[in-house]
């Protein structure tokens, strides 16, 4: 049964190809587009049961399809590697993708580019599954670039608006910075260790490098650069909020649930390397903690519903990085999984809200939608609670408690990381309940244009069930994953029990909920007064512009490049070629004048030419 593994990425890829080439009627596109993902999801479940039923020797299964190429000792194979980590990723990706495809069949039904949309989405799923299942770094990089391409294509999906094209280019270029670091890291690893096969690489790295050696640090930092770009972490997070220009299912699938977590997956996959490079791992912690706080503050001030969720995504991936950095590897992957469920659900709910109001994104022009859109309200509420971490009930609470507890007790944990995690919980609870209260409670501002059908509500309900239920799987999940990802909460802080940490997190959650309730439901004038106070106004502007990062990058990189380009326009080399062009033009003008069409003028020119020629021959 495990041999079916290759079909998991192959089916979506084939269907993407068919959708891109063949012109089909809408109904056929919807069926083909979502059934291919359904098939992929079903096969991944079959493979998962086969894997769990009879674990292969060594706890991992490798399927070699063929050798990609063979040049100078570099023999990357098209080979898939299935171990507990990639198994979980595969199922999460295939399952969430399937639900979002079903949702899209209705969401995109009024759109002209229906076939194009599903072709891109299927290609994305195929690339993401390749990324997750790749057994060597080069194939992983292929999937990595594939998802980047699909992200670019789908952000700029409504390409008639130049702003969407700009957002797509920004996403592509900013992630390119990280990808360049990543490919250099791959070169470095191959140069030093002579292989790209991930498991082989880890084995050789531990043999060849001692802990803290310069090469290990360099390689780990370069790979971290790639992860930071793809996962929208500080300092490359600026592309993700703008990426919300794409259709909402795209935001749900690519820019929340799956692609942006690729960086987390990469670091978890290469965790042996990070264990060899403590400074690089410390950098992961710092990036994660800083990003989760910065994005949390930014999310507080946004009034575009999708941008709130985008900053929330950045912040939650910050939590995952924090967990990776402190060495709580399974906690990061567990949060990745629960986050995929509840964040996809939040976006799908936001999509219903936005579409029912005819494309309205501003939360302050929504309001009172609780009665009109009950399914969207309840599922959004469940997902919001899961995101903020409503204790004991929701999946998000279990995963986040684990991370926050790990931030203190894991190998590299410290009290400061624990505190930043707590502040993050307060912010999360504030911004998500702000959104919920403003959108679904209060007075209704605009009428609901049309209500969602079953294709949109059923995926939401299923995701809502998982947003709650996934949390109870923590025990078996942890046991299953520790085979590949070590998890040993150190005995350094035995006094600090997990229950105590969870209790404090829960208290902080309710504090955030209470403040959101006071400021955005009960007494909205308090929030307004806070926003117009001098300090409030400065902070609001600062956070609203994402800590002025775009402004800084514009000054630091974009404008100098534009300036140099302006100077370069009139350089010496160009001058020479422009002179040639000028010379040609002059010659052309002169010769053009001789072609007058006057017969006698031609005769004169011939005669004069002959005379001059004879004169030259005679007298010179």
């Amino acid at each position, binding site marked *: 049964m495990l041999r079916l593994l290759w079909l998991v990425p192959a089916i979506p890829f084939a269907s993407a190809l068919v959708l891109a080439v063949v012109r089909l009627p809408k109904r056929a596109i919807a069926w083909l587009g979502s059934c291919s993902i359904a098939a992929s999801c079903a096969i991944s479940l079959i493979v998962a049961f086969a894997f769990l039923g009879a674990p292969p020797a060594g706890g991992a299964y490798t399927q070699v399809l063929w050798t990609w190429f063979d040049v100078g000792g570099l023999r990357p194979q098209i080979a898939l590697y299935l171990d507990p980590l990639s198994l979980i990723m595969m199922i999460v990706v295939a399952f969430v993708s399937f639900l979002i495809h079903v949702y899209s069949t209705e969401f995109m039904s009024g759109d002209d580019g229906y076939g194009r949309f599903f072709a891109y989405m299927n290609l994305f799923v195929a690339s993401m599954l390749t990324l997750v299942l790749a057994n060597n770094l080069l194939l992983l990089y292929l999937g990595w670039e594939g998802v980047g391409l699909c992200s670019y294509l789908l952000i700029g999906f409504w390409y008639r608006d130049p702003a969407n094209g700009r957002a797509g280019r920004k996403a592509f270029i900013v992630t390119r910075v990280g990808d360049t670091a990543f490919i250099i890291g791959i070169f470095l690893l191959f140069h030093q260790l002579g292989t790209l096969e991930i498991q082989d690489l880890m084995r050789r790295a531990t043999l060849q490098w001692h802990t803290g050696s310069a090469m290990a640090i360099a390689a780990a930092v370069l790979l971290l650069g790639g992860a930071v770009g793809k996962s929208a972490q500080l300092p490359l997070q600026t592309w993700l909020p703008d990426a919300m220009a794409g259709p909402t299912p795209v935001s749900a699938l690519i820019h929340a649930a799956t692609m942006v977590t690729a960086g987390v997956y990469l670091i978890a996959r290469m965790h042996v390397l990070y264990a060899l490079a403590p400074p690089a791992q410390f950098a992961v912690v710092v990036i994660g903690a800083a990003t989760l706080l910065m994005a949390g503050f930014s999310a507080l001030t946004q009034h575009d519903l999708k941008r709130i969720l985008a900053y929330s995504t950045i912040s939650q991936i910050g939590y995952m990085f924090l967990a990776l950095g402190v060495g709580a590897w399974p906690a990061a992957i567990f949060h990745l999984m629960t986050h995929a469920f509840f964040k996809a659900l939040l976006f799908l709910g936001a999509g219903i809200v936005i579409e029912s109001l005819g494309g309205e994104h501003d939360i302050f022009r929504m309001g009172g939608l609780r009665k009109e859109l009950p399914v969207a309200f309840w599922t959004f509420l469940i997902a919001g609670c899961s995101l903020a971490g409503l204790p004991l009930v929701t999946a998000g609470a279990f995963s986040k408690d684990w991370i926050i507890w790990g931030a203190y007790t894991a190998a590299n944990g410290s009290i400061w990381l624990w505190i930043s995690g707590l502040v993050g919980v307060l912010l999360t609870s504030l911004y998500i309940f702000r959104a919920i209260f403003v959108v679904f409670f209060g007075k209704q501002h605009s009428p609901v244009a049309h209500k969602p059908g079953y294709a949109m509500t059923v995926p939401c309900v299923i995701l809502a069930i998982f947003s709650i239920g996934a949390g109870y799987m923590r025990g078996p999940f942890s046991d299953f994953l520790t085979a590949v990802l070590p998890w040993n909460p150190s005995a350094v802080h035995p006094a600090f029990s997990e229950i105590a940490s969870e209790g404090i997190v829960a208290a902080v959650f309710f504090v955030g909920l209470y403040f959101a309730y006071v400021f955005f439901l009960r007494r909205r004038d308090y929030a307004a007064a806070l926003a117009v106070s001098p300090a409030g106004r400065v902070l609001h502007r600062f956070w609203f512009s994402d800590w002025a990062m775009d402004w800084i990058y514009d000054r630091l990189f974009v404008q100098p490049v534009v300036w140099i380009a302006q100077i370069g326009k009139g350089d010496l080399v160009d001058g020479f070629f422009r002179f040639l062009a000028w010379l040609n033009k002059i010659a052309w003008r002169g010769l053009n004048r001789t072609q007058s*069409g006057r017969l006698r003028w031609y005769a004169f020119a011939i005669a004069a030419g002959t005379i001059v020629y004879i004169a030259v021959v005679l007298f010179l």
Partner: protein
Amino acid sequence: MTAIPMMDGLILGGVLFALGLGGLLLRRNLLFILISIEIMLNGTGVAFVAAGSRWGQPDGQVLFLFILAAAAAEVSVGLALLLRYFHQRQTLDADAMTKTNTRG
């Protein structure tokens, strides 16, 4: 019979050629241009004959006969074209025919 000095013959040919060229450049009527070309042709013919007699060879005169025959054929074609042109344009002004397309 006294031989005519070669130089005289060549001068005559040169003068004829120059007159023909002058006519070609100065006249605007196509018919006169055609006549001027004939005069130039005859100028060269005189030069051939003079040069031939200088060396006591008949080649110059033979060549001139060929030139005359070719010129006769050429003139008949030229006149025919001239007539066609006159029928279409009602003019023989060379300066008026700066465009090749007859309709313009």
